[in-house]
């Protein structure tokens, strides 16, 4: 198993855990919610860097010979990216803890608050689809990392994702 797959699995698991915690600001507290979200945004960049080859390959052959599944996956990933930007931007605009702590004062606009709620709810649906599309890879990589089995299936799952 490649180190990239192992790193991806642990990074994605951490990202997913952070995503769940940030989805409940009343439970975690506002400060944790805001700082953890900012940290998660940086982690998303690493997530994208680890998938860079796939992104470039599918972008190049999107309209030529990409499989339908890859096209749907690609569009879904873009939607998730755009929605993530909206969540972050609206979150920064209504920040009550992180931005004031950094000495940044932003004007309060209720539209951002509504957009933050809306984009967060939308992200749950897109994230559910994103996870379902990569479920084979998650399961096979998990098995390989923790039980040392399924080397072939990891390769086939990776190939399936690359198509």
């Amino acid at each position, binding site marked *: 198993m490649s180190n990239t797959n192992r790193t991806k699995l642990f990074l994605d698991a951490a990202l997913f855990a952070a995503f769940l915690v940030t989805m*409940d*600001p*009343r439970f975690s*507290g506002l400060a944790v919610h805001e700082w953890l979200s900012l940290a998660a945004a940086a982690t998303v960049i690493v997530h*994208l860097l680890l998938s860079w080859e796939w992104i470039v390959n599918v972008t190049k052959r999107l309209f030529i010979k990409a499989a339908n599944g890859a096209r749907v996956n690609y569009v879904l990933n873009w939607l998730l*990216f755009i929605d993530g930007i909206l969540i972050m931007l609206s979150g920064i605009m209504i920040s009550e803890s992180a931005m004031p702590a950094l000495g940044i004062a932003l004007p309060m606009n*209720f539209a951002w608050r509504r957009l933050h709620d809306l984009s967060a709810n939308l992200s*749950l649906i897109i994230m*559910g*689809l994103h996870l379902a599309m990569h479920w084979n890879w998650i399961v096979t990589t998990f098995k390989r990392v923790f039980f040392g089995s399924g080397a072939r299936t990891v390769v086939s799952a990776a190939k399936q994702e690359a198509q």
Partner: protein
Amino acid sequence: MKTLFRILVILIIASMIGGLMYAGVSAAGDAPSLENERPRLPEGEQFRPEREGPAERDGIDLPGGMVKALALMSIAGGIYSATVWAGRKAKQVPVR
């Protein structure tokens, strides 16, 4: 160097999308309708209330937001998986 370039590409794209969103919301925010829709909160109530402390609340403290997140993600993922499964099953039916 290659990684830095890629990070730069991601940040530039994110900034462009974010800039467009900011411009859109600012333009919409200038309209009087949005200003009027902002609810007036009662005296002493916060714009987004902090979580109550454990001592302030009775019963089991369930992270409702996380449960909701997991439930919605499961539903979305389940619908997708069922659709894919049904599509594969339909392909397997032999043609007479």
